[in-house]
């Protein structure tokens, strides 16, 4: 099937890969110098332009040089005696990374645009350790990548063979068993209905960075503040707000849809040796292996529109090696329907987690949230208006909108705030618009914290935090007796079994 390659001898990357390395260093230079170059380019007269060209040429030459040297100095091999995967790299500072084969968590093969054009692949070796303990090979041919991946993971199967079902292993070997494909329509639905807040954040950051940069370079020339101020003043305020909102919503829709499509195009999930193999992407193709044993928290999220359109999003949090890597350890499966979601859950948890006994929060949670976000800011607003500057009171009708908005959010947030407990799983449901269901396995609990404010002692309410290797789960203000009872039960379940958590 795959050309047998001897990985025991030091290997170079694929020769054509110099091109990838070249673009890589070019990109690094580019992102560092681009603003300056662009700025000179716009503002400079002819003589300066010459200098800019010389500069660009120098950068190109240096990039080529760096790419070649990087290629020369980069070798990788598998040390069979020590069972280690070893990478040598570095031009001036030499680095030797050795990764124990049984510590390898994931081997990802992926392609970005340049990879795709010249037809090669990049390979990522993930471990449970920190960032430094990771192997990245930037340019490798497909057959070699597959062979290496096979070799790296093959060793692991040998060591962890007990965990993985032997029958399945023999039958399927490396053959893929695609069981879920997310179609274009589902992605479109997800694109329209999710990530509003994230997109607004993106737009705002983008907007402010541009303004900041413009101000930074030439205060008066580029940016005529007076003019803009005048323009803004001429537009009636309601009309202005309405206009801004319409523009924002359009931009958000466009960004969301394109982002979802580009990122998740052709999303397919396959079963392989008891793990899940995910691959997706329009421009950059990503493929990731997900092992059910490594899954810590599964988050199923769906809002009102998504419910009507019969789609939902799944986020899977794995063991995080580093707080920084939190995003990387999270795998998203967008746009599956209920049936597909159940199938995935069955694969991960080996059974479908049922909602068991329900815990509700105390009404004080609602009261406190209202106090914090409505009563406090509004009293601040009116005190400011009455005692310091009465002009602000002209806008007091906005407070009604504000109050209604937050009342609704808190009401639904409170209504949806639930903790379900059954024999093996804990499900926390929360959220006002996007309703999240976070599922964890009791076996995967690392530690438990109960917390109680001293004035809550007499009314017997308190909070619970469940620590897992993929993050925490907090459930606030419910019956403290009940929490303590569950903590005792869960501790008993964890401690009586000697099984390791991974």
């Amino acid at each position, binding site marked *: 099937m795959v050309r047998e390659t001897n990985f025991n001898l030091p290997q170079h990357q694929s020769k054509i890969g110099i091109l990838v390395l070249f673009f890589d260093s070019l990109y690094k230079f580019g992102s560092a110098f681009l603003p300056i170059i662009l700025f000179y380019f716009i503002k400079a007269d002819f003589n300066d332009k010459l200098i800019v060209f010389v500069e660009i040429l120098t950068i190109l030459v240096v990039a080529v040089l760096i790419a070649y040297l990087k290629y020369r100095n980069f070798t990788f091999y598998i040390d069979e005696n020590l069972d280690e995967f070893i990478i040598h790299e570095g031009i001036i500072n030499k680095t030797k990374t050795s990764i124990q084969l049984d510590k390898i968590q994931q081997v990802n093969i992926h392609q970005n645009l340049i990879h795709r054009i010249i037809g090669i692949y990049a390979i990522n070796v993930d471990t449970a350790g920190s960032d430094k303990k990771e192997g990245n090979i930037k340019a490798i041919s497909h057959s070699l990548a597959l062979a290496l991946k096979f070799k790296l993971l093959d060793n692991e199967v040998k060591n962890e063979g007990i965990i993985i079902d032997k029958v399945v292993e023999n039958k399927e070997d490396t053959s893929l068993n695609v069981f879920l494909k997310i179609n274009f329509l589902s992605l479109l639905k997800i694109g329209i209905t999710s990530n509003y807040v994230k997109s607004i954040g993106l737009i705002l950051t983008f907007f402010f960075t541009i303004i900041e940069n413009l101000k930074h370079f030439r205060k008066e020339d580029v940016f005529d503040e007076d003019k803009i101020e005048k323009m803004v003043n001429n537009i009636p305020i309601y009309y202005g707000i309405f206009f801004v909102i319409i523009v924002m919503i359009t931009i958000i829709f466009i960004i969301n849809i394109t982002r979802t499509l580009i990122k998740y195009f052709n999303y397919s999930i396959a079963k392989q040796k008891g793990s899940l193999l995910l691959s997706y992407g329009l421009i950059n193709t990503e493929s990731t292996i997900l092992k059910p044993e490594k899954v810590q928290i599964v988050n199923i999220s769906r809002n009102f529109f998504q419910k009507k359109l019969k789609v939902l999003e799944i986020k899977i949090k794995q063991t995080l090696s580093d707080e920084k890597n939190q995003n990387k350890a999270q795998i998203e499966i967008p746009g599956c329907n209920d049936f597909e979601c159940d199938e995935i859950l069955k694969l991960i948890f080996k059974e479908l987690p049922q909602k068991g006994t329900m815990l509700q929060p105390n009404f004080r949670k609602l009261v406190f949230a209202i106090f914090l976000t409505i009563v406090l800011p509004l009293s601040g607003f009116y005190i400011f208006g009455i005692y310091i500057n009465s002009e602000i009171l002209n806008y007091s009708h906005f407070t009604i909108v504000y109050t209604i908005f937050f009342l609704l959010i808190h009401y639904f947030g409170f209504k949806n705030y639930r903790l379900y407990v059954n024999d093996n799983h804990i499900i926390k449901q929360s959220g006002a618009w996007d309703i999240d269901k976070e599922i964890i396995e009791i076996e995967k609990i690392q530690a438990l914290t109960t917390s109680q404010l001293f004035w809550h002692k007499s009314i017997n309410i308190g909070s619970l935090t469940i620590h897992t290797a993929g993050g*925490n789960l907090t459930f606030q203000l419910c019956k403290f007796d009940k929490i*303590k009872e569950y903590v005792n039960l869960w*501790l008993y379940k964890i401690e009586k079994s000697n099984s390791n958590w991974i």
Partner: protein
Amino acid sequence: MENFTNETIDTKQLPRFEEVQLTSLHSNYWKVISFKNLIIFSILAIALVFLWIILEDSERFSVYLVFGIFLIIVNVSFVLNRISFKKKAYAFRNHDVIFRYGIIATNTMVVPYNRVQHVALHEGFISRFFGLATVEIFTAGGSSSDVEIPGIDKVEAENIKQLLMGKIQK
């Protein structure tokens, strides 16, 4: 398989973590905290005095007011530290470690031994003078689920570490 039984667990019969008698921190640890605070506030006081000398129009500020505020901060910090010290307590059970901490809230954290990754002993500069050490217990759950129990007698801390190491290897 024949010996396998699956009886209902009586949750009322389970050992209760909330009823465990907790050990409070070594009384010398209060001295460590006080000493640390003394150093911090001395530096702050010296800085204030210097500032007062250097600033030209420092007469505008009332010395009594500044001193008063300083005293209030010192007192509040003292009270908070005292509460925090009083509340911290720990217990090592057969299968897990319990640690209680907090100022306004009472947090009780329970870490089962079979989830502990490694254990470390830490001796602070001041703690060493009083023969105290901190036992640090790390899990895979990241910093939020790690336990640091300060103010344990050094010999005892060493014993605890040995005990935990034994439990982990099992």
